[in-house]
């Protein structure tokens, strides 16, 4: 095999992905310009009718605001938990560092449904939080922590955590220990050193991790569906409903493209911001 023949080895994978990835994606794009008939059947067309329906419907804006708000809050909460873990893993010199890193990443390998069941047990009416609060005499009737925005936000924050820890760790390369030590030896308190040196230096990593968390939250389906209990409506749940229950494929496709554009806009914004901050 001369060196010119190496590319031949890539042909099976390229053909496979062309069939199961490229073609279906183009099909989805095309479907968004079909029409849905009065009976619900799809009509081959090339029109913007579905888009007009989508963008004229006030429900679309409600879903958009819901999705954006959920993603921003879940990402912010996740950042507050991920940052100390990532900074700890970056700095620690314990011999358990490898084990601790695996413990931080492992949840992303455990099935999402398993972790959601964990949250049902923690947040349910007779779950861990309510039992503890009742035992402490803080409440007499259970707090509603499930099947509403509270539960979905908590569950979603937890599900994006490992990804954000990895993104932060990757971005911490720029943190220079010497600068922090210089600030400390010049008399700055640990808190002041953190606020004035560590935090500004890690800002590009924070922005990138936040962008990733946001995108993952926008497209999350299982968590809003199961922890929302049918009472939490976001773009992702509506896309699934339109595609399966309503079988309105043009609408589902248009909504999916609309969501994708929103996500790309935010992702672009975060990477531009991160590069600006890194300069």
């Amino acid at each position, binding site marked *: 095999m001369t060196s010119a023949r190496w590319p031949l080895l890539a042909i099976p994978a390229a053909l496979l992905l062309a069939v199961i990835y490229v073609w279906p994606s183009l099909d989805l794009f095309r479907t968004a310009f079909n029409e849905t008939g009065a009976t619900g059947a799809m009509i081959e067309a090339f029109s913007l009718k579905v888009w007009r329906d989508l963008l004229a419907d006030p429900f679309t804006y409600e879903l958009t605001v819901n999705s954006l708000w959920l993603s921003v809050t879940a990402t912010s909460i996740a950042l507050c938990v991920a940052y100390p873990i990532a900074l700890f893993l970056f700095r620690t010199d*314990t011999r358990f560092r490898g084990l601790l890193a695996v413990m931080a*990443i492992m949840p992303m390998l455990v099935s999402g449904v*398993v972790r959601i069941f964990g949250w049902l047990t923690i947040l349910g009416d007779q779950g*861990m939080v309510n039992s503890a609060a009742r035992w402490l005499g803080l409440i007499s009737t259970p707090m509603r922590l499930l099947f509403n925005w509270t539960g979905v936000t908590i569950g979603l924050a937890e599900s994006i955590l490992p990804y954000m820890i990895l993104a932060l760790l990757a971005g911490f390369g720029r943190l220079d220990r010497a600068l922090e030590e210089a600030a400390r030896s010049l008399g700055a308190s640990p808190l002041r050193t953190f606020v004035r040196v560590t935090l500004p230096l890690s800002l590009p990593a924070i922005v990138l991790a936040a962008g990733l968390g946001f995108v993952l939250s926008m497209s999350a*389906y299982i968590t809003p569906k199961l922890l929302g209990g049918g009472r939490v409506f976001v773009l992702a749940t509506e896309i699934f409903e339109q595609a399966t229950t309503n079988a309105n494929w043009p609408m589902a496709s248009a909504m999916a493209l609309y969501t994708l554009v929103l996500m790309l806009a935010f992702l672009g914004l975060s990477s531009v911001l991160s590069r600006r901050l890194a300069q």
Partner: protein
Amino acid sequence: MSGAGRVLSLIAAISYALILAPIVVVVVMAFSADSFILFPPSGFSFRWFQTLVANAPLMKALGLSVQIALVVTLLSLLVGVPAALALEKGEFRGREALRGFFLAPLLLPTLIIGLALLLFFTPLRLTATLPGIALGHMTVTVPFIIRMMSTAFATLPENVEAAAATLGAPPWRVVWRVTLPLAAPGLIACAALSFLLSFDETVISLFVSGPRASTLPVEMVRYVEGRTDPMIAALSVLLIAGTLAIVIVVERLVGVRRAVGQS
């Protein structure tokens, strides 16, 4: 000033507790004697494991998921490993573009891939069939294998391969006798993770599954939607144990962070 410091270590410990809480709680719940979700349980038993084994739909879905994950892993390795070799060993025009093409599916949310596959498979009558679900999972596993294996091939010591080539071994023989054996730990870790990716894949499966054939995560979602009793916790314990086994294997062979962390 070295290490992490006491304040940071304490905050990190609290954060760890939050991350691991859902998993720990599920394990305790699995041994509950109650008929509904009550934490802490009023008593402990194995009744939910017995109920689980007697649940025909879940057991059938478990069998199908294992079958699909095996087929998906085998086929994905067959097309993915050669592609990774081409990207690392070959020097040709458009190589970086090809790499970008191969990794692109990892950037698209599975919600959108799932929808695209539903539109594509329905006219072909591939939804709710084993080949349909397997092909759907391969949109995730093939790019994952190409990414992980091209890193594995790129970090191999070049001198051994060069020595074999200098001694007159033809390139395919160098790959077969030197490159692949050297990359064996990476290959095993990659196969294990790709099995896990397929086994746990939920969103794509929800789109392309149906009453005739549905995978374990799909059946679990349906069960949790309907009612909440500790049976899913019993099943979760088995899944957590399986995941832990795979995580330990991968950590020993290549390191979990290296395997999943390159995005």
